[in-house]
């Protein structure tokens, strides 16, 4: 039980203090490459995931863009329209799910 509690905490920890944009309504024609290309204009995209459903071969219309800094994320969120393949994306910040005491953001910031 304690182990699973700690595991839960680990899952929560992953996104804290990391500038991530959550993107919805991605057209089926675009994949992570296209997203990465589009969002590169706002800053350095550390990681870009658009999970594909192995059952259908299509993705689920959503993805996550990990930027290097809050500022870059902010730049991306500032822009009103994000259009890929003629389709308007919905972009919003990925909210940190919880805060954990013993981790400080400055220690994680470098990578």
């Amino acid at each position, binding site marked *: *039980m*304690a*182990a*699973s*509690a*700690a*595991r*839960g*905490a*680990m*899952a929560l*920890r*992953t996104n804290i203090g990391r500038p991530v944009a*959550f993107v*919805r*309504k991605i*057209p*089926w*024609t*675009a*994949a992570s*490459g*296209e997203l990465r290309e589009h969002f590169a204009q706002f800053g350095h995209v550390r990681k870009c995931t658009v*999970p*594909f*459903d*192995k*059952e*259908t*071969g*299509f*993705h*689920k*219309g*959503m993805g996550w863009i990990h930027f290097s800094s809050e500022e870059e994320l902010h730049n991306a969120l500032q822009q009103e329209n994000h259009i890929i*393949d*003629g389709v*308007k994306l919905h972009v*919003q910040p990925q*909210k940190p799910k919880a805060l*954990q005491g*013993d*981790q400080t953001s400055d*220690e*994680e910031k*470098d*990578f």
Partner: protein
Amino acid sequence: MAALLRPARWLLRAAAAPYLPLSLRLLAGGPGRPHAALCLRAARARPVAGGLLSQARLHSIAAEKKNYLQEEPTSSHRRNASQFDWALMRLDNSVRRTGRIPKTLLQKVFDNTCHSGSAGGNQALLLLRSCGSLLPELKLSERTEFAHKIWDELQKLGTVYDVSHYNALLKVYLQNDHKFSPTDFLAKMEKGNIQPNRVTYQRLIAAYCNMGDIEGASTILGFMKTKDLPVTEAVFSALVTGHARSGDMENAENILTVMKEAGIEPGPDTYLALLNAYAEKGDIDHVKQTLEKVEKSDLYLMDRDLLQIILSFSKAGYPQYVPEILEKITYERRYIPDTMNLILLLVTEKLEDTALQILLACPISRESSQNDFGSFFLRHCVTMNTPAEKLKDYCKKLKEAQLHTSPLQFTLQCALVAQKLDLAKVLMKALKEEGFPIRTHYFWPLLVGHQKEKNVQGIVEVLKGMHEIGVTPDQETYVNYVFPCFDSIKSVRAVLQENGCPHDDNVFSQAELRSKAVNGNLDYILSFLESNTLPFSFSSLRGSLILGFRRSMNINLWSKITELLYKDGRYCQEPPGPTEAVGYFLYNLIDSMSDSEVQAKEEHLRQYFHQLKEMNVKIPENIYRGIRNLLDSYHVPELIKDVNILVEREKTDSRKPSSSDLESKLEKLKAENQPIGDILKQLILMLCSEENMQKALELKAKYESDMVVGGYAALINLCCRHDNAEDALNLKREFDRLDSSAVLDTGKYVRLVKVLGKHGKLQDAINILKEMKEKDVLVKDATVLSFFHILNGAALRGETETVKQLHEAIVTLGLAKPSTTLSSPLVTLYLEKDDLPAALESTIDCYEKYKILPRIHDVLCKLIEKGETELIQKAMDFVSQEQGEMTMLYDLFFAFLQTGNYKEAKKIIETPGIRARPTRLQWFCDRCIANNQVETLEKLVEMTQKLFECDRDQLYYSLLKLYTKKQNIVFDNETYARLINLLLMKDNSTQAMQVKDFAETHIKGFTLNDAANSLLIITQVRRDYLKDALTTLKTALDLDQIPSRLAVTRLIQACALKGDTESIHDIQKLVNGLEDSIGLSRMVFINNIALAQIKNNNIDVAIESIENMLTSENQTVDPQYFGLAYLFRKVIEGQLEPALEKISIMAERLANQFAVYKPVTDLFLQLVDSGKVDDARALLQRCGAIAEQMPILLVFCIRNSQRPGKAPVMKSLLELIPELIDKEEAYTCLMKSYVFDNDVTSAKALYESLTAKNVKLNDLFLKRYAVLLKNAGESVPFTEPPESFEFYAKQLKESKETHL
């Protein structure tokens, strides 16, 4: 539900016609002459073959049977009823939204019905009725087949059919143009002992007529005559069709005369039958003539009737006349769904060109490029195998007509979903020609299909197709979609070569590498990396390599691979270079593991780090810090020092003095005989942070006399980290000698206990625990958790004595209370050794000592797995006896669920008398979530469906949490809607939106209900997604939903604050006609439009329009109710001074010139309310009539007296308008306000001025005042009325009523 049950709206037309007298007059008639009778007009249900019968007409018959649920008085009544509701809701939703039912949905409802084991009569009726024109996407013959399948299957389940079922089947036959023998049908009914009724005969006549068999129809009419059954318009209409189809148009037309003679005026149905008859003959002239005739009469044809004529023309091979009929369409509100269904039907009938013609004529707004129209058509064309070239042409036309922005892409998507490779290739080529890129992932859906069937040839075909289009498969394509289809990668290579499938060897090899890595084949990885000639980036392999490492615990291979990647120029050439790359890799490796995994593999990891050290692999310091934090949070700080040795020292900050600098400084001071305490401590701390234990210990030995408490503390901790129990203990003793009252911090004590325990120094460990107690060291939750980890670690190592003694000490000393967590290692000890009797014994022992049952669930699961019946019995007896039967049942239920014994679990949870225990259910849900047990949780949700008092929402919420965590589970419409609603209520809109997106991707035409949409609007407004909120409102209204007043008002207000006049106007148009249903006052719009205009600096426009409304001849709102308080308040709050000034002028003008006093009074009151008393006074002086607006003023008083904090406002108002005090309502409110805010002074003043005026005060007033005084500790100058508030309130109310 309503759409299926309620007689459809257009039935009103029939109902509106005067009912004809129920006399029965038979007409004499020869063959071909109908027997007619007058009758009550029935619903316009007309049997037109293959017809485009509206669904509501079809299902309206359901309304004939109102005694739906009473009809099954069996014990399964309730279940059947709810099942029926559910099925009905699913189908009804679809029908209401689209006028059709997708085949998959009907199939699903049918399957569910079969699965449930029984179907009531109504459910059967519903399913049968769905098999006709509601399935435009299915060929006519397939629909009938479906109906027959349902008929047979349900009969097998024991459904009893009555005449309504036979009639429904007949109707399906008629709608599907199914050829059958009416006499055989009658025989079948007879065999089933079912008496045909009027409807049966009527439909049989229609069946004969559809075949052009007048003689047959006449026979049936004869039957009806002998049975004295009335002949309806429907029969006449059928006869029109019958004559026409027998080639006798003259007699077809004559029917209308016969009808009139019989006293029945031909209605729209009859005319439509005639029109269809002409259309089938391609006789456009007669069609036009008849249409004109109808137009001139008081009858009228609806769009769907015209669509029917179009269908008749098209099916008969006269598409050239379609445009002429299309022109006559008036575009009623429901036109689009009907048209869509016609289009689908035409495509099914292979008349797709006509379908396109109708599609292009649809009145769709072409401006908003957002909404594509025609997707349903393209999708269905793909399903029906419309030739590729035709589809390409359709796409072009749709795009030219600006109906669809990306028809080719959409069609391609459909082709991919349907796994149609050839069509997909044509479409991709077309896209390519238009300059669109063709991406690798376009081929994945095609590969998925073959992968499921392990169809190698299919895979090869797709790969060849890729080559043809000019797309090279990438690593992901191979790893995820190609390799899984083959037994080995070797065979993939062979098959590709055999079939001449070109592939990039480099990509292929790397894909192979990734695939091997994921499977933990580290030998292969190493030899590949060694022999590989093409450089690639380490990071591309990182994810797969981590998975591989975790699968194969061969540390030597781990190190060798890491070393190679670190040192070899082929892999870490790119910046930021090998140190970063490997550091990041290590971080990710540990991050990907769970805490228990790291704990279990602690030794392996240590070995790995040391091997890396020997190989001279280094990592940057910042990454080391990240790893350190990770290890700390995993409760394995002992590994920190082992990672520390990898830190790249050369690059550490050169501005900081190094340890050797400090050391030489220390020696210098010592030589000079200066005090060295400070610098010694500094040096020790630095060595500790560098994890240099040996050096630090040497230094301590050398300068022992200069050591301080802080230095010892750091050293003790360092030794603990390095697992050096001996030195740690010695240091602790020296520390005590130095200062016996000194206290370490909690973490260091805990680490000492851990190290000492681990090294068998049990008594020393217990002494440390004792010291903690004596020195009253702070024990936090985290400390207790650390205790657990110490005990658990020992339990996993099988150290029975350590676990028992330390646990005993912790509990007896009172450092922590025994709990299921803390005490669980006592049981874990034996579970790990598979000693189940001892494990159970230990659990029971804990209960006897501490009244807790640690790990009972795990013990039970193991007992069940091993089939230890006797021990299970023992455990259950114990639990039952100690904690009651209910607890025992839950324990057993969870254990069965967990071990996959669902049948047994189900039996338990269905035990009579068992009821929901929310905390226990939640515990199990959380467990499933933590361990990603989707199936188990789903089973729990399923099995608890009938559990008494079970909070379904909470269970669904848990399911949702797990589902969002896993991100790959698909629910049905209902579950999604429920979850979204729940999330919105829990105010978790981000997650709600995520789920909605999932739902929309997975369920065609996913919708939310009224309440959820309203909540969604409110949430979107709150989060400032106004455009989304507006879209939601539109969607809801399109579905004929009534959104809540609050939702609409919030949206309007938010738009106003943004100055978005346009959106408010849009909303006004959208809700036009629904204002009363929503409960929306016109004033909401007037206030907010004005506010929006003001926000846009259009103050004059706003003022002018308000003035016009109040002064024009035809006022829409009575000036007395023209409340602008909201507008005024917002203007005052927003400090919009120029606007306020102009509004003030307007209000005064309205008062002075038009005697409209409501605005000026409202303004005055708002000024008072916002504390602008001087402005209010000035206004009052300019416009004295305000003081005479008693009703408005009193309403203001009453409203304010119901809110706290309004006493100052009320006081100001009374000062401004002293004559208010003469009104009973007013002074009552004043007192109420003063009491609310405990304003004794004002209350006193009020009381005195009232008594001075000799006002007779009522008891309620006196009671209030008395209580206020008493609470303030003051004496009451009169006898306090003795009864309660309620008593006097009631008394007052009654006395007022008698006065009236």
